[in-house]
């Protein structure tokens, strides 16, 4: 028996014998539960897009038939996000148009490296990198680099509709979206 209260609260279910579970909302938290004569209860947390479950062991005592499962035992189980591979993006760079601005205000060094071509592919996307983009990395004395790439790509097609190229995709690693207009003149947006 699953006791549902609302779509965002903890719900409890009895053990496989499904004998009896009672549950109460305490202090408005919606996470306290009472179980009787059970080794454990199963707790659910139901969100808009997901449901997590965890087994909560009741403290067992022959003399005590009712146990209150405290708030901290019913805390939300770990729901760490995970990563799913979607695309591979390659950007060819040009040594010829690379500029080294040296230390900026006595801090990290700024490079401007033109991106001359490349692609992004995968998950229904197939696009070609156009000339004109660039990487403006900051190189710190400890040799850590913060890349600052902005490139424009043309979409040749995407597999869901096989439409001809008529759309643009931009790829950026910063919100500044620097754009190299030539090897000797640069602007930022």
């Amino acid at each position, binding site marked *: 028996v699953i006791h549902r209260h609302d779509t965002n609260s903890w719900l409890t279910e009895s053990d496989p014998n499904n004998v009896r579970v009672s549950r109460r909302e305490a202090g408005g938290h919606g996470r306290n539960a009472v179980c009787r004569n059970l080794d454990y209860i199963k707790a659910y947390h139901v969100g808009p897009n997901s449901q997590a479950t965890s087994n909560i062991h009741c403290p067992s005592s022959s003399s005590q038939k009712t146990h209150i499962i405290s708030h901290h035992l019913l805390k939300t189980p770990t729901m760490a*996000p995970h990563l799913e591979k979607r695309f591979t993006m390659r950007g060819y*760079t040009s040594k010829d148009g690379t500029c080294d601005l040296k230390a900026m205000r006595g801090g990290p060094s700024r490079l401007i490296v033109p991106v001359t071509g490349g692609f992004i592919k995968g998950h229904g996307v197939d696009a070609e990198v156009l000339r004109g983009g660039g990487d403006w990395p900051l190189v710190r004395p400890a040799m850590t680099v913060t890349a600052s790439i902005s490139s424009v790509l043309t979409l040749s097609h995407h597999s869901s509709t096989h439409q001809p190229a008529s759309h*643009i995709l931009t790829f*950026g690693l910063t919100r500044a979206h620097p754009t190299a207009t030539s090897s000797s003149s640069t602007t930022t947006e």
Partner: protein
Amino acid sequence: MKVDEALSKVLTGADDAKTTSFGDHYWYSTPMFETSDPALKWIEDAAWVGQGRVVVDESGAAVEYEIYQVVN
């Protein structure tokens, strides 16, 4: 990106610069996309993580990212 010896060779244009593998470096990014394609508008709203490497081939030197969507 933490510049190591292999990356340094590529960044400096060394003749013995070589293609590396994903995971060879501590090199991560959080790319963003914008597109005019209505069918791909979803990628503007997704969260992304990229892992980088360098590629050296007949076309020259390139940075390459495997790009992952952050999902529940």
